[in-house]
């Protein structure tokens, strides 16, 4: 398997957004994360530990940002400016008691400093600026709860991690995944530096030495390897499950059926906030959701007919073309 071969495949599948490279894909696995349903409970993250032989690194190494949580739930405290009513004690409370509540605010105020990351602002145009708050409300409390965001490898089509690998250990598969070949990896960590989502995880240590004291190691999943020191790793969209499903379909001379299998995180999600499937299959649930929300692959800027639809991709303006669609969180105001 020559480097040449890798590069050929790479350029074959990793085509620029303009060329619509994904048309050649056999499958293209994608995901949808509905933040209206996500409760931030962490079930997906632990399911990922269980499925993918992720080592537990301990408190000290967690403190050095060496935790190997391929799927993490980010929790942000800032809130968009959606103040339902003035959150400070109202001066005209007497008027309220008499049955004259203040008018409901439905207009969202732009609160984004326009000088901040100008490139990103273009992503959603005015819509984006309207929706995104900066630094929370003036309220004394966390009025709208928390903002939870499950982050797994976004499996970008125009992945920033791929072109920087000096040994072509990270490459694009015919399924549209960013794959990491552990045997090829030399641990330069360029890919991780280049990932805007910080979703690549480096084995700084030989975790197998102490992460699975006997008999904990009996839980390890034989369908994928245990990675050693000096190797980069990341979410694979449970490629071992994809492989089983594809092999099974092939043995039965049929196509993979939507919903026949899913990744560990999707399968366990207690609220069903995560959806997984093949975007090359127009009838799959993910395809339907992407098209309902008028988000298209291969674009750096969406031109939605209905600007109110919730679908967006995280940091889409960076031209990464991710395979994970997020649906905005919803709050009553």
């Amino acid at each position, binding site marked *: 398997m020559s480097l040449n071969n890798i590069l050929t495949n790479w350029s074959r599948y990793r085509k620029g957004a303009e060329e619509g490279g994904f048309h050649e894909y056999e499958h293209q696995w994608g995901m949808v994360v509905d*933040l209206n349903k996500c*409760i*931030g*409970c962490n*079930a997906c993250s*632990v399911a990922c*530990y*269980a499925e993918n032989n992720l080592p*537990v690194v301990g*408190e000290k190494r*967690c403190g050095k940002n060496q*935790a190997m*949580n391929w799927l993490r739930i980010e*929790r*942000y405290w*800032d809130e968009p400016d*959606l103040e*339902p*009513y003035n*959150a400070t*004690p*109202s001066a005209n409370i007497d008027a309220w*008691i008499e*049955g004259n509540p203040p008018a409901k605010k*439905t207009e969202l105020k732009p609160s*984004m400093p326009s000088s901040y990351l100008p490139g*990103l602002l273009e992503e959603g145009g005015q819509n984006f600026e309207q*929706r*995104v708050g900066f630094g929370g409300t003036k309220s004394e409390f966390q*009025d*709208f709860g*928390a903002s*939870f965001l499950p982050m797994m490898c976004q499996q970008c089509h125009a992945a920033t991690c791929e072109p920087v690998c000096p040994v072509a250990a990270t490459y694009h598969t015919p399924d549209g995944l960013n794959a990491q070949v552990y045997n090829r990896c030399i641990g330069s960590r360029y890919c991780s530096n280049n990932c805007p989502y910080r979703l690549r995880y480096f084995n700084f240590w030989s975790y*197998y*030495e102490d992460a699975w004291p006997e*008999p*904990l*190691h*009996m839980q390890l999943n*034989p*369908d994928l*390897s*245990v990675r*050693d020191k000096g190797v980069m790793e990341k979410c694979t969209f449970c490629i071992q499950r994809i492989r089983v499903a594809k092999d099974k379909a092939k043995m039965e001379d049929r196509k993979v059926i939507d919903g026949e299998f899913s990744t*560990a995180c999707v*399968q*366990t999600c*207690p609220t*069903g*906030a995560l959806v997984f499937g093949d975007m090359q299959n127009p009838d799959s649930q993910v395809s339907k*959701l992407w098209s309902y929300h008028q988000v298209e692959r291969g674009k750096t800027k969406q031109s939605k007919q209905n600007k109110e639809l*919730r679908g*967006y991709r*995280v*940091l889409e303006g960076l031209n990464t073309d991710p395979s994970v669609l*997020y649906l*905005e969180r*919803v*709050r*009553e105001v």
Partner: protein
Amino acid sequence: MSGNDINRRDFLKILGWSGVGVAVAGCDRPTTVTLEEGKEEVVAYLQPEEYVIPGVGVWFASTCQQCPAGCGVHGRVREGRVLKMEGNPDSPINKGKLCQMGQAGVQGHYNPDRLKKPMLRKGGALAEVSWEEALAALEQKVGPASGLAGDRFAWFTGTVSGHQSVLLSAHLAAMGSKNHFIHETINNAVARAVNQDMLGEAMPRYDLPAAKMVLSFGADLVGAGTSPVHFSGEYAKFRTGATRGVLVQVEPKMTLTGGSADLWVAIRPGTEGVLALGIANQVLLGDEIKVAGLPENIRTLIAAYDVKKVASITGVTGDRIMRIAELLKQRSPSLVVAGASVEGHTHGYQSAAAIMVLNIVLGNVGKTILPSGSSAFPQMEAKTGGTRDLLALADAADKKALDVVFFHGANPVYTAPAALGLTDKLKNIPFKVVFAVHPDETAMSADLVLPILSAHEDWGTHMGAYQPEQKSISIQQPLMERLYPDTKGFGDLLLALLKARQVKEYESFADYYGYLKNAFAALPASVKGDAVSDEDFWGKSLQKGVLNVGTVAGALNPKMVEISFPEFKSDAQDYYLVPSARLGLWDGRHANLPWLQEAPDQISKVVWTSWVEMHPATAAKLGVKEGDFVKVSSAQGAVEAQVYVYKGIHPQVIAVPMGQGHEEYGRYAKGRGVNPLKILAPVTDAKTGELALYGTRVTVAQSGRREVLVKLMGSETQLGRKMVGTVTASVFDRTEGAKNVT
């Protein structure tokens, strides 16, 4: 999704190692792998079942035992090892889903610190002994010849249900004892008492999807609550569909459920009942018909709590109170629920009752609060408890009223506040026997420790503590051969205890498996469905993992109780301590599971340790910031941990999470963090006698030390990037709502 569903007969008989080269690949340690011929061994089955294919995983149904919810699971088994848990889609409780605790069940099973041999206290220290010696010691102390009086014997357990519960009750009867203490630190005992008194049923059914609004007073429905996975699924339905439900959460410290609230309201601890009455007052303003329908005493009670008075007591601003009332009026039916932060006060019962009054005023009873009824098998239903029995045990031990106590599924030495003096009082019980999987604090202070099979090795049947509309019995079956030959099944031990007491009914059963099989054969035809024989029914039951059983209809009869509150004094000098519960470590029972230690707390994102939550205003007052160590002191003791500052907490509240601070419990738990339960004041709810977990006052002082607080979180804010976008519900209703796009 569950791959090969197998109609398995005697699973235990076929477990073994397949002899295939690459099968155990993932388990090898990279440095020791060899490809050299003749170095490694392959061993085939002596005789495989027809469905066992080396290299192919099979799934078996069982029941999760990580909390009392009783979710159905599918365990993935390959080459005789259980690898992964998934939810069982046939379970009406969790419908194919699972939480992080369920996922981590395998780490309890494969835990490196499991108890492997019986231990007997000899000359002050526990020493490993053989089962013969252990059982002989047991026979000597509790056998018919021991002369042990029935009332001097007790069982102390966590929630029990199913056939274990039946056997346990039979054993108590055989011993002539009525002493069954049931203890859960995370419980809804006070709310259950209120439900029983006001509705006639302790645990009615909540129809979350039917509610257009949920007003939760500290009820962590999707977190550390009665049935987290079930309510998470219900929550998703509540949030989608034609009318997106609105969630308002009122509590002193943000719970996981609070994190998803449309409106999160901080409240002065203990004043939730007052707020409920204040909201009722607002709801009733101008609605004379409704007011006229209420009993006189309730009318008077509600009338006393106008919005200004309530605002001054609760610290919730008047416009918030009116906003909530307005939403409730617009969104009927709604559902108002009370949780741990309401229950955990000396007047917890009164507050929870006031919250139920609000439900009655809103007309929710019969619409979103429905009669649960009982199943056709009441003797199998979950027996659950709270902290009252913990106090009762301490009291009985203090009075030297017990000679022998059997412990199972509870760790009172860890969960009891230091003020109870339980560790000392337990010394008055001459013979304490612990049936345990892991070396917890209670086991290590016992006189006899009997190592039992893990949940993934044992047989059993369970009924979840909360039963949805479709009531079910969930079957627990071994997912693999036992890891340690010197461990025994809990059911087998119960059966042996019954036989030792010569209880005729149980003499014919060789083991618990045989007993269960027989019990299944004896079930009525209505449960057996289309099974053609007992053997067929048994096979089908194991394959499905869940037996749906009929419901005996119940009815709710709303009734008022007397409600009165103590005088709420404003005292800014000290703080309320909130010993918060988290979905993950739970009440501390999962602190020995490394995945759950490394899974961050959902709200603070802290891993592996304890922390002290406070409001920015409080932190400013104390002159501390994140990472500073502070000493949190009550009259009963002090704990020291690092500060975490955020706005999801009332400024008068200091929260320290439960779960850490173990003195025993294996390498992952021992000596890590602090246990806030230890410094709780021994105050109780006046009506129910439950410990008032939120009723402790503390002072906070800097201890001068500072370290980086270890969190799995980069920035606390989005730095202006669109990481999490938010839209208003009106936008959602326009674009999706009833269109049912997902």
